[in-house]
């Protein structure tokens, strides 16, 4: 009898498995996806038609690095505002922890759901490429923002600011604060963060300019975008380099942690700190005199622009080719640059005079 029951169980499991496989097998013909294409994008792959109106009812999904990252909450809300303006359907999905593999699974789900536009910030420039290409083949338009993938895996990358712009801005800020001479250090995020490394390389070039000849960059430390790690690294920097005059931390996590360390230490006000941070996180340290000035773009505008770029792609206004122009609501007109990159604009500098006007 028990053998019979076991047979039944084996049968049922194999049946369930077979059903799944059968699903897969039957799906073979649909793989070219000629039938379930929502038809939103295909004509756009021809020539751009700058006068095309933005289609109503576009399905736009935002896939941030992780759902629980406040920075992305702000930028995704910017995207939501834009989508509401042009009467599309907005959706935000994502993994609860930043990992490339779970992003892949979400991209697959989104392409399965027939999204017109997927707006994403990549946890890994390569790992999500395959999935994005499949989604593209299924008819979705791909826009990346904040962190790019390889250029061939997306149509548009909305960059917050040019790398040169960041480097120039950061070096200028620290130079003003330390009086144009002394040792400085950089507290970065992770050692392989593409954008961080590009900025650091350009900062080094910037420092070779004659007006910065008295400033010496002593080291680059990595806080892994982890609050405690960044805190400890700041502490380590100050102990290792007694003559340190200033720290640049071009990452929101790093600069907040460094600010917290300095504000509670004997170095407060003596060692200068600047970087890229959000006004909400830094307000306290600006007010208590730890930080003179720091910079950032508006994450909400970044999401807003990315949503418009996606809509323009899906409506056929642009194809992602260099020189294409499109209008992004309240932000005005933007031009697509080389490799499909759209630049949001120069960063905003925050200090004690203007910080209270910003809430993000």
């Amino acid at each position, binding site marked *: 009898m028990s053998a019979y029951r076991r047979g039944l169980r084996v049968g049922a499991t194999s049946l369930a498995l077979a059903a799944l496989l059968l699903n897969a097998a039957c799906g073979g013909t649909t793989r070219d996806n000629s039938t379930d294409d929502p038809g939103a994008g295909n004509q756009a792959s021809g020539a751009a038609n700058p006068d095309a109106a933005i289609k109503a009812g576009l399905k736009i999904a935002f896939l941030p690095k992780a*759902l*629980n*990252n*406040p920075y*992305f*909450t702000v930028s995704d809300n910017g995207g939501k505002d834009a989508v509401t303006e042009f009467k599309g359907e907005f959706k935000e999905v994502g993994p*609860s*922890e930043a990992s490339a593999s779970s992003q892949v699974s979400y991209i697959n789900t989104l392409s399965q759901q027939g999204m017109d536009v997927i707006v994403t910030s990549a946890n890994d420039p390569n790992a999500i490429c395959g999935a994005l290409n499949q989604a593209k083949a299924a008819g979705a338009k791909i826009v990346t923002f904040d962190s790019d993938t390889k250029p061939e895996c997306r149509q548009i990358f909305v960059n917050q600011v040019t790398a040169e712009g960041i480097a120039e801005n950061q070096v200028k800020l620290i130079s003003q604060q330390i009086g144009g001479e002394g040792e400085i250090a950089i507290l970065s995020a992770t050692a392989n963060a593409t954008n961080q490394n590009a900025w650091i390389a350009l900062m080094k070039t910037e420092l070779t300019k004659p007006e910065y000849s008295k400033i010496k960059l002593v*080291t680059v*430390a*990595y806080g*892994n975008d982890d*609050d*405690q*790690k960044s*805190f*400890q*690294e700041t*502490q*380590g920097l*100050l*102990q*290792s380099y*007694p003559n340190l005059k200033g720290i640049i931390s071009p990452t929101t996590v790093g600069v*907040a942690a460094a600010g*917290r*360390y300095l*504000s*509670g*230490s*004997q*170095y407060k006000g003596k060692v200068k700190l600047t970087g890229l941070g959000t006004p*909400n*996180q830094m*307000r*306290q340290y600006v007010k208590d005199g730890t930080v003179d000035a720091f910079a950032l773009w508006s994450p909400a505008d970044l999401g807003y622009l990315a949503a418009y770029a996606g809509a323009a792609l899906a409506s056929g206004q642009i194809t992602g080719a260099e020189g294409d122009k499109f209008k992004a609501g309240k932000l005005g007109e933007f031009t697509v640059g080389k490799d499909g990159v759209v630049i949001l604009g120069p960063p905003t500098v925050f200090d004690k005079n203007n910080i209270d006007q910003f809430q993000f």
Partner: protein
Amino acid sequence: MSLTDAGAPERTAGNAPTDPGRQRRSRTERLLAVRELSLLIALGLLVLVTTLRNDRFLSGQSIKDLLLGCAILVILAVGQTLVIVTRNVDLSVGSILGLVAFATGSLFLSAPGTPWPVALVVGVALGALCGAVNGALIAVARVPALVITLGTLYAFRGVDYYWASGRQINAADMPPSFLRLGNQTVLGVPVLFVVALVVVAVVGFYLRSYRSGRELYAIGSEPAAARLSGIPVGRRVFAVFVASGALAGLAGVLYAARFGTLDAAAGTGLELQVVAAAVVGGVAIFGGSGSAYGAALGAVLLTTIGSSLAVLRIDPFWQQAVVGALILAAIGLDRLLALRVAARLRGRSAHGA
């Protein structure tokens, strides 16, 4: 060398002596003292080496940073000691800490005038509630705490994520008096560290000198024997989980005060460090032995390693590997010591016979 000699796959000797005979107890205590002493020596060596490389490592500021940095881990490790001693484990402490930290921030956000002692009480109570959920599930299911707390590790964190839904609470949202708690010093010693010291002293004293404290060791050594000798095992284990949850709650409130910036990911992955601190501190993972003082020292050692790696400018990627190697070394050492003791006891009773 002797590791291989001791390699016989016998597990029974791994249990610390269960007989509450005075002689053995003092032996256990001596063993523990040896452990704590060796931890202190390791700590001293580490500080010495780091200081030789960079004399700022022993500056007042640096010591203050160290004490501040280890306080939260010390509290969690002491809570974990209570649990591990009874041959259980609580993997959900990181999630409880995150949940309570966010709850504390939300409390200040929704009721800005709340005095901080109220927040402290609310936080500890919320932590105790989470611990009670763990304890109740373990009592109902009669399955290893490992499985239940693995489940609540997900569940509590999920609740935290769901609640926060990507929001962040900033230092500006919390009253300055509360934030000062996180950075203030009394005679140069951070308040946080003083709190941690009090917790260590209370729990250490309880485990050593109270009847119910000693009973926890009996439960961990041999649950069946403990039950037969009339110890209310179920109730004690439940209480231990409530205590561990409450301490995680306390750590959560202090976390909020210290870091000021809170999102739902606070304390993610902390459980591993906590267990590591306890194990490195000589709390036997199979229950029945270990002290709060040892666990606290373990926590201090782990924090110091983190800081000195940063000061020595060693690739920070080594840190996690070092923690792993330390755990292995610590349990290996414990095993070795236990076998030695067992062998000596056997030898003695053979002579006696």
